[in-house]
C-alpha cells in the first residue's frame, strides 16, 4: 500500500473487511449459527464505516467532494449498496441475503480499485459547480440501490430454484427488490437525468447532447421505467421481475465502464 494516499489505504482495508463479511455470511450459511450471521453484519457495517472514513479523508485531501473520478464514483456506489445491505440484513435478519449480495458490492469495490486513484486537487473548470454534488451523488446513490436490487434478485432466483422454497419468502424478496428499485428510480430520474441536464445547460449550452454517458443513462432509465410499468400495469413479478432487475444493473455497469471505450464529455478519469 506504500505510495497510496491515506484514503486509498483505508479504502483497501474496507475492501478486505467486506471480503471478510462475505466469508462470514458464507460461514453462517454453512453452520446456520446466528452469531456468525451477526458477526457478518458487524463486519459489513465496519466496512461501511471504514469506507465512510475513506471518503471523508479523500474529501479533505482533495478539497472537494469525492465525486470527480471513476474510482470515486464507484466507491460511493458501493458505499451506498453496502450501507443499505447492512441495514436490510440487520432489520430482516435474513443473513442469506448478505451471502448473495456481498459479492456484488465486492465486485463494485474491485472495479473502483482498478481505476486510477490519484487525487485531483484541482477540478477542471467544468466540474467546479454545486451541481457536481447534486448530480453525481444522486446518480451514484441510485446506482448503489440498483446494485442492491440486483443482488436481491439473484437471491430470489437462487432460492426460487430450490424445491423447498417458501412462497412467502420469495414474495418478500420480490417486494424488497421492487422497493429498492423504487428508491433508486426517483433518485436516478431527478439526480442523474434532470440535475445532469440542468448542469449541462449551464456548462455546455445544451440540456442533452447524446453523449455516450447520457445515452447510457437514458437506456437505464428507459429500462427501469419499463420494469415499473411491467410490474404495476402487467403484474410482472417473481422470476421475470428478478431477471429484469439483474439486466438493469448489468446496463448500469456497462454504462459505467463504457466511458473507458466510448469517451465523451463525461470522461473525467
Amino acid at each position, binding site marked *: 500500500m506504500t505510495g497510496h494516499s491515506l484514503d486509498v489505504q483505508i479504502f483497501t482495508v474496507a475492501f478486505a473487511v467486506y471480503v471478510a463479511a462475505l466469508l462470514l455470511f458464507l460461514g453462517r450459511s454453512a453452520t446456520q449459527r446466528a452469531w456468525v450471521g451477526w458477526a457478518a453484519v458487524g463486519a459489513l457495517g465496519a466496512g461501511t464505516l471504514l469506507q465512510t472514513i475513506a471518503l471523508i479523508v479523500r474529501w479533505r485531501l482533495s478539497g472537494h467532494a469525492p465525486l470527480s473520478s471513476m474510482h470515486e464514483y464507484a466507491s460511493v456506489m458501493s458505499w451506498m449498496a453496502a450501507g443499505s445491505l447492512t441495514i436490510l440484513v440487520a432489520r430482516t435478519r435474513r443473513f442469506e441475503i448478505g451471502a448473495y449480495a456481498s459479492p456484488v458490492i465486492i465486485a463494485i469495490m474491485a472495479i473502483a480499485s482498478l481505476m486510477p486513484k490519484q487525487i485531483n*486537487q*484541482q477540478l*477542471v*473548470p*467544468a466540474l*467546479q*459547480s454545486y*451541481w457536481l454534488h447534486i448530480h453525481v451523488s444522486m446518480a451514484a446513490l441510485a446506482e448503489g440501490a440498483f446494485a442492491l436490487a440486483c443482488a436481491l434478485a439473484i437471491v430470489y432466483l437462487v432460492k426460487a430454484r430450490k424445491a423447498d422454497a417458501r*412462497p*412467502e419468502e420469495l*414474495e*418478500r424478496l*420480490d*417486494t424488497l427488490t421492487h422497493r429498492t428499485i*423504487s428508491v433508486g*428510480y*426517483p433518485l436516478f*430520474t*431527478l439526480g442523474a437525468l*434532470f440535475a445532469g*441536464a*440542468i*448542469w449541462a*445547460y*449551464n*456548462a*455546455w*449550452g*445544451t*440540456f*442533452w447532447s*447524446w453523449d*455516450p454517458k447520457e*445515452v*447510457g443513462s*437514458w*437506456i437505464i432509465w*428507459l*429500462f427501469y*421505467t*419499463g420494469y415499473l*410499468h*411491467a410490474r*404495476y*400495469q*402487467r*403484474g410482472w*413479478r417473481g422470476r421475470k421481475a428478478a431477471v429484469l432487475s439483474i439486466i438493469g444493473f448489468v446496463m448500469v455497469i456497462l454504462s459505467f465502464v463504457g466511458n473507458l471505450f*466510448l469517451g465523451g464529455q463525461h470522461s473525467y478519469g
Partner: protein
Amino acid sequence: MTRQAASSRRGIWGQIVALYELLSSTRFAILVVIALAIASILGLVIIDQIPFRGEMARMRYAERLDEPLVWFLVHIVPASPFRSLLFRVLLALLSLSLLACTIKRGRRHWREAWVIDPPDAQRFRSPNAVVWQSAAADPEAPLTRLLRGRQFALRRAACGEATCLSAKRFGLSRLGPVLTHVGFLALVVGGLWMASSGSSRMLWLRPGETATLPEASLRLTLEEFQIETTPRGQIADYFSHVALFEDTSLVRRATIEVNKPLRHRGYSLYQTSYRQDPTRVRSADLLLDLAQLLSGPEGDDAAAPGDRPTHGRVETRFDEPLNVRIPWGRRVSLGPAPYAAEIDTFFADFRILAGGPGLASEEPRNPALRLRFFAGDSLVGANWYFAFHPEMSVGSGPDLPLRFISYDPLMTTGLELSTHPGSGWVWAGIVIMTLGTLLSFLLRYERAWLRLRRVRDGWEITLLHQGSPKQAPEYARREWERYVTPLAIEMMRRVEPRGGRPVRWPGMAEPGAGSGAQGTAPRPSGKEAERA
C-alpha cells in the same frame, strides 16, 4: 343520414377508438420503450463509432459509390443516429402512447375524484373486510373524527339503507403518473423544438476584438481574457470579460466563465474553450549568437567563451548569446547587428501549401515566424525562422545567426453563442416530471370505505380498505399489517365491538365454519392497540 354513411362514421370512429386503445395500452408502451432502448444502443455503440456514414460517406467514398458497403453507409446508416427519422418516429410513437395513456388515466381519476360510487353489498362481505357490531348510539361521529384526524378526505354516499363514507388519503399521489407523463411530453416537445430550431456557433475572440452578432443586433467586445493556473501549472479557471453593445451604446458588461453563461434577450454565451491564436503571438523570443555575428560567417562557434576574441564595447556579452524579445507590431533593434526586426507573420503550424507558406492546422505543431529586417527605415528583406528547427532560416533577409527559441502565445477565448427556442418547454417538463415523480414515490394513496348499517340493537360497521388488487399477496399482507390493522384497531377502540371482538377479520374463519380458523381477530386493547 343514410345507413351507409352512419355505418361508415361508426367504422371510422371504431378505428379511432381501436387506435386509442392500442396507443394507451401498456404492451404498446413497453414495446416502444424496448425499441427506443435498442435504437439508442445501436446508435451509440455501432453507428456512432463508424467514422464516415451518411453524407460524410458520400464525400469520402465518392469514387467507390457502387460498392455495396459504401451504398449502405450512404443510404441506410444515418449520419447522426439520434437525429435520424427512425429515432424521431420512435420518440413520436412514445409521445403518442404517453398522450393516450395520460388521457385514459386522467379520465379515470377525474371520474373517481367526483363520482362517489360505493362498492356493492357483495364486496362489503369480501374476506378483506373488517366487520364488527356495536351498541354505540352514534358511531359515525367518532369514526369520522378519527379518519379526518388521519388526513382522510371523507365524502358521504347512500348505499341502500346504510350510510357509506368514502375515505381517501393522499389522493394527490394519483396525479403523480399523470404529471410524469405530461412532463415527459413537454420534454420531448421542447427537445425536438430546440434540436430543429436552435442555433449555435463559435466565436473566437482576441482581447480587444469585437464580434458583430447580427442575429441579436448586438456587438460583443472581449475586454480581457484571463486564465488562472495553480502553482503546479494546472488550469484552475478561465474567464472572458466582455461588453455588449447595442449600436454604440453599452448594454451590459459581464464576466463569462464555465458554468456561468451570459444570457441576454434569448441568447446565451458560454465559455466553452480557449486556444492559442494560430496566426498571432504576443511576442517572440529569439537568440542572437553574438559570437558568430561579430566574428563573421567563418567564426568558430565551437570555441570556448574564454577563447573568443574581444570586440570593443560588446566584449562582456561574448559569454552569452543575446536574447531578443520582439513584441507583435513593434520594431526592435537587434543590438550589435545593424538591423531592426519586426514580426511580419506567424503560423502555429507552418506548411508549404499550393500558394506558398500557409497554416496547415490550428495546432502549434510547427510554429514559424517571418521577420522583416530594416536598415534604418529601409526594408532589406525577410526571413522565416522555425521554433522546432532553430538552426534553419529561409528568406531574402540578411544571413544573421538568429534562432527562434520561444514565443508568448496570444490566447483567444472560445465563446459559444446559442439560442434555445424550446427551453421553456424543457424547463416546464423538468418541473412537472419532478413533481410527478415525487408525488408517485413519496405519497401513498389510500382508499377505504366505511359502511354503517343499523341492525336490531345497534350498528354493524364495515371497514373495507382497498389495497391494490395487483399487489403480491405478501405485499398485501404486509400493507394490511402496516396500515389497516392499526386503523381498524383504533376504530374499534373508539367504537367498541360487541363482545370485544369483530364479527369478521381478514384471515379469521367465518362464524360457524368449524375449527379450522387460521386467523385470530384481535381485541382492541393490549400491546397492539397501544402501538396503534
